[in-house]
């Protein structure tokens, strides 16, 4: 027995556990439940609710020698204190004797439940938590059968307090355990809710505008041990026991959070199943037991009535609904006739199966297939990404995390959370960006470069690592040397590379520089070391792995002279209406889509595709974890999964493809693509025991997040990990033309105006209108004030936005949230013209 392990006895069972572990954890690991309300395994104990009262006996020790004192039978003398103690705050030691289910302890627990119930309303029948409520469960287990408290003395509080439009508080149900407050403060550092008042009047208030302003607010409803906090989308939506649960993967960002889609049939949908709510599914290597509010609330697009439900073909200039057979025939004919110069363009939100079949079809037709993206890094991720055994949750003291050119909180909130927590555990965080991002608060070093200089900044760090004198011209920003030293000295280092401020050229140079830096500091080919690209779409890495890469030239050039265009899960004409002019008028266009996008308007054949809730498939996260999602509801209209549509066209055109099942496509992928050799659906359904236990019987402990029994996914190994040599290359930066005027840089906002977010009416207030962020100098020069309208011209188009002034933005740069229909994928030059040059002020 090592000295860090101690032996103790709980309810007569002898067990071993690490010294200093909380008694409540040690007991549960040994299979003995200790009832808790305020304790949560992801947070520091506070000992507020007093539910976990147990009897603890400690062996007497000799004062001098520290040896145990023995009684006449040579047994240690055990001293029990006069009071019961809380198991959640007590750290175990050698020789303890603990009673959790003794008469005295049970009596204490019963008294606490009785206290909690004195003013708790008896509205379990109408409470959304009823059926999955820790207080309900623990009352049944530990509570008294009847209450001695006078019903008329019960305290009546407000039943419906909207802490914001997303989370609703029932003050009467609240048992003041502070889990929500502590979650917001300790875990996500958005302390926007607090207790107000004291004693029996203690109540939760929010003091942010808008209320409960946090990207993680929904998680508080999972860990609330009563029905005090509920989400407004599920409010009175259904009873928990009536729901079906399908495992899925969040489609919104490259983190790949594991989720559960709770579905139920509904009368107003004609008795078909709909998604009633989204809950996190535990995966301690990806999202632990949390998800962000976008993942939780932006699901309604999949059930939107605007979805395409029928194939359409263009007849006499108009799109007309038709049968699948006819549409497929028209598409096949069209491709046969004008497929000589075919371009296939796919989006990064399609599944691996879709992307693989897409590649097969376009290749089979001698066309060119591409990924509708500009950011580089997919190849490097295959070479030097994080491999098996990695877990951001393992990073801590001695490790380093670099985040460059990314606003993680907006782009991938759960990565932000895990990076922040790693920094708090002691990992050294380096945040390099051209502007302030919230992650800087936790950074050991901040490197601030000018927009567009990200590759040079990394090369500067490389200079300090290798001493390469040709690079010393790039060593010019504060913090580079220190950062280089931290990365070099770190046991493990992970580098998050984003695309903020990058165009396709500089993104390529940035990833080369990052790869070189990681290679030079020997942070490749090992678990917990390597590159993580922060993609703009959830499955961009999967697309790279399936062999699709971004266009070498600008997309506009790729469109010229094409005779046919095949679009899947992307909307180039919606992203940039100017593209319509680039594609030849007579080019034959096929679109596979969910919605009637501007690209659909240009299409000759339109196929309705299925969304992630209706089908199965796999996604590859930015960390290169392949994960499986399952169908939850029946398909919308006549829609089909993308891979199947492709296979059916392929059949008509003589391109042999797997057409029976998504699992079958994955088998093909496994045969064809080396990295995926071991990946089959059966293996993706792997499960593992995870700590803390959540859901089911342990709902009181970890919350209502679902236990993961449907698959935790497989982490792909990197080439470097398989022993393949990595040749770091980096390119000298081209001489930048001294740009005149102002550059406009697209940035990511979590709640964007994308097709997957806009239909979520619940988030409408949070989405807001895009604002043009401008520095003080430029604002002064143009006589702009906060909120003033400004016209921005770029690439021959003009748009109007209100202005938000940010002192942190350097001169000559304006920021604009990424948005559809703007044609602003990468930074470019722009012109600003104030719409009303402060005439109002002059008039006054």
């Amino acid at each position: 027995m090592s000295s860090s392990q101690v032996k103790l006895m709980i309810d007569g069972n002898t067990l071993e556990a690490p010294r200093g572990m909380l008694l409540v954890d040690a007991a549960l690991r040994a299979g003995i439940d200790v009832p808790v309300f305020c304790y949560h395994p992801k947070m520091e104990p506070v000992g507020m609710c007093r539910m976990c009262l147990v009897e603890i006996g400690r062996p007497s020790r000799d004062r001098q020698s520290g040896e145990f004192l023995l009684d006449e039978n040579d047994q240690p003398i055990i001293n029990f204190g006069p009071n019961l103690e809380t198991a959640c705050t007590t750290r175990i030691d050698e020789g303890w004797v603990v009673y959790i289910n003794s008469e005295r302890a049970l009596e204490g627990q019963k008294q606490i439940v009785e206290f909690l119930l004195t003013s708790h309303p008896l509205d379990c029948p109408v409470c959304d938590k009823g059926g999955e409520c820790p207080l309900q469960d623990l009352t049944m287990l530990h509570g008294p059968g009847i209450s001695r408290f006078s019903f008329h003395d019960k305290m009546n509080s407000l039943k419906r307090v909207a802490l914001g439009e997303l989370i609703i508080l029932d003050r009467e149900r609240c048992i003041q355990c502070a889990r929500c407050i502590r979650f917001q403060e300790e875990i996500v550092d958005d302390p926007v809710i607090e207790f107000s008042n004291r004693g029996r009047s203690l109540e939760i208030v929010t003091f942010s505008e808008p209320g409960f302003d946090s990207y993680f607010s929904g998680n508080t409803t999972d860990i609330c041990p009563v029905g005090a906090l509920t989400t407004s989308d599920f409010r009175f939506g259904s009873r928990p026991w009536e729901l079906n649960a399908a495992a899925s993967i969040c489609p919104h960002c490259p983190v790949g959070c594991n989720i559960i889609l709770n579905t139920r049939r509904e009368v107003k949908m004609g008795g078909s199943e709909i998604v009633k709510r989204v809950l996190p599914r535990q995966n301690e290597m990806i999202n632990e037991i949390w998800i962000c509010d976008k993942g939780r609330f932006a699901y309604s697009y999949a059930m939107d009535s605007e979805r395409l439900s029928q194939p359409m073909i263009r007849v006499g200039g108009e799109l007309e609904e038709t049968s699948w057979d006819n549409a497929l025939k028209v598409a096949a004919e069209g491709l046969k006739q004008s497929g000589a110069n075919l371009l296939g363009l796919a989006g990064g939100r399609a599944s691996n199966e879709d992307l693989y079949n897409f590649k097969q079809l376009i290749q089979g037709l001698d066309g060119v297939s591409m990924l509708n993206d500009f950011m580089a890094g997919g190849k490097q991720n295959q070479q030097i990404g994080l491999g098996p055994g990695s877990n951001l949750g393992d990073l801590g003291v001695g490790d380093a995390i670099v985040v460059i050119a990314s606003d993680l909180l907006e782009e991938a909130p759960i990565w932000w959370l895990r990076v922040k927590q790693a920094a708090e555990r002691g990992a050294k965080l380096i945040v390099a960006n051209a502007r302030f991002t919230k992650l800087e608060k936790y950074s050991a070093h901040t490197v601030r470069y000018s927009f567009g200089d990200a590759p040079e900044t990394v090369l500067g760090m490389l200079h300090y690592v290798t001493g390469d004198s040709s690079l010393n011209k790039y060593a010019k920003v504060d913090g580079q040397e220190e950062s280089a030293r931290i990365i070099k000295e770190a046991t493990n280092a992970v580098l998050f590379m984003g695309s903020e401020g990058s165009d396709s050229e500089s993104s390529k140079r940035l990833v080369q520089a990052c790869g070189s830096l990681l290679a030079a500091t020997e942070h490749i080919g090992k678990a917990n070391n390597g590159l993580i690209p922060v993609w703009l779409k959830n499955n961009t890495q999967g697309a790279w792995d399936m062999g699709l890469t971004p266009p070498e030239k600008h997309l506009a050039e790729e469109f010229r002279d094409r005779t046919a265009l095949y679009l899947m899960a992307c909307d180039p004409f919606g992203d940039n209406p100017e593209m319509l002019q680039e594609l030849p008028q007579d080019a034959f266009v096929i679109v596979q889509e969910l919605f009637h996008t501007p690209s659909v308007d240009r299409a000759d054949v339109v196929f309705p595709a299925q969304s992630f809730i209706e089908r199965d498939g796999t996604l590859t996260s930015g960390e290169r974890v392949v994960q499986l999602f399952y169908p939850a509801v029946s398909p919308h209209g006549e829609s089909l999964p993308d891979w199947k549509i492709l296979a059916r066209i392929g059949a008509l055109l003589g391109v042999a493809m797997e057409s029976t099942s998504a699992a079958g496509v994955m088998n093909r992928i496994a045969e064809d693509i080396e990295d995926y050799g071991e990946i089959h659906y059966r293996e993706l359904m792997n499960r593992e025991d995870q700590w803390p236990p959540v859901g089911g019987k342990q709902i009181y402990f970890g919350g209502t997040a679902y236990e993961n029994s449907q698959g935790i996914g497989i982490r792909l190994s990197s080439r470097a990990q398989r022993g393949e040599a990595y040749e770091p290359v980096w390119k000298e930066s081209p001489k930048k033309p001294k740009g005149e005027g102002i550059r406009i840089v697209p940035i990511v906002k979590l709640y964007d105006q994308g097709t997957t977010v806009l239909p979520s009416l619940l988030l409408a207030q949070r989405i807001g209108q895009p604002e043009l962020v401008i520095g003080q100098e430029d604002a002064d020069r143009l006589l702009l004030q906060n909120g003033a309208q400004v016209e921005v011209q770029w690439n021959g188009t003009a748009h109007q936005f209100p202005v938000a002034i940010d002192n942190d933005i350097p001169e000559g740069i304006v920021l604009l949230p990424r948005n559809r229909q703007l044609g602003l994928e990468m930074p470019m030059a722009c012109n600003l013209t104030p719409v009303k040059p402060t005439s109002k002020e002059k008039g006054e």
Partner: protein
Amino acid sequence: MSELILFRHLDIPDINDLDVYLANGGFKGLREIVGKKSPQEVVDIVKASGLRGRGGAGFPTGVKWSFLTPDVFPRYVVINADESEPGAFKDREIMERNPYQLLEGIAICCYAAQAQTAYIYCRGEFWDLAKELDEKIAELKDRGFLGKKLFGEKFDLEIYIHVGAGAYICGEETALLESLEGKLGMPRLRPPFPAAEGLFAKPTVVNNVETLANLPPIITRGADWFRSIGTEKSSGTKIFSLSGHIAKPGNYELPLGTSFRELIYDNGNGIPNGNAIKAILPAGASAPLLPASEEILDTGMDYESVSKAGSQLGSASIIVMDETVDISWVAYKTTKFFNHESCGKCTPCREGTYWMFNVMQHIKNGEGTFDDLATLNSVAESIVGKCLCALGDFSTMALTSGIEYFQEDFNAHLREKV
């Protein structure tokens, strides 16, 4: 009457003037130690003096100081001037009339604890007093008793006043620290104790006003002298705040171990209107009440004897009740007080005080039944020993002891359950 150690203003009228204080040996104690004695030596002197915390718990002060985590700096000294126990008004008099002795005591404590910053946490209602103290602190700074390099030695000291917002719970040391940090006044989990992780998670000494005011004479006159006053285990004098049905209420500084009889009859001139004494609350609302038997009256007021008699000396805010008092009314008032003052952090106290208050209200309104007494006792039992801090326990004491000793007072309000 014995010698006055703390209430020197009664002997020297203008001692709240710095010059008068200096002329009467002021800051002699501080000068004697700064640069001349090591902090450890000062801790040893205080340990030897047997000085015990005057805030209520009576924990030996020197021992408390020796628990400070070694080699962790900065450290803080926090002075608990949140005197909010019903019937306690002793710290107020010290701060009003003899403030420099307190400030010198703070300086000595800081020297012993190797702290450079002290915060006086003043209860909200003492805002005028806080203002005066601020002026006094400014004066000390001007005159070189505070600030950098005191007396040319390596000892810096700043004292700040913080005014609370009127919560009883902030008299509890960890709740006080939370409040001082700007958070909601709620007790912290212990361990870690303030001596390890106190204010801003640094080692912190929290002492009561009266405790620290004892330090200057202990330093100047020695531990043995201090030990010679009071009883063996409770040395020194104590200020007893006497109130209730008493002819001459007020603060009385007497050696620990003085009997209740001496305080009430010799100093307080007995019960007015020739009424008989019925009960004594020896520590405001926070300890069991004692029926005023001859035996109790002869009990010495020191930590051990009062505890043996079935109550606690606490902050020695002694409330005397004569025969006209209905003890059920006292129980009603105390439960009402604790229902109002419970911070709400832990369940038994938050819900239990609310419950007990509601039942007491029914009893007061004549709606109580005999079952209610059993309920009250059982609720009280469910609270005791199950809370984070002592407030929960305190909230039950006057009530349960009242039911125990004076059940007939309750019975008069009760009816059979129908």
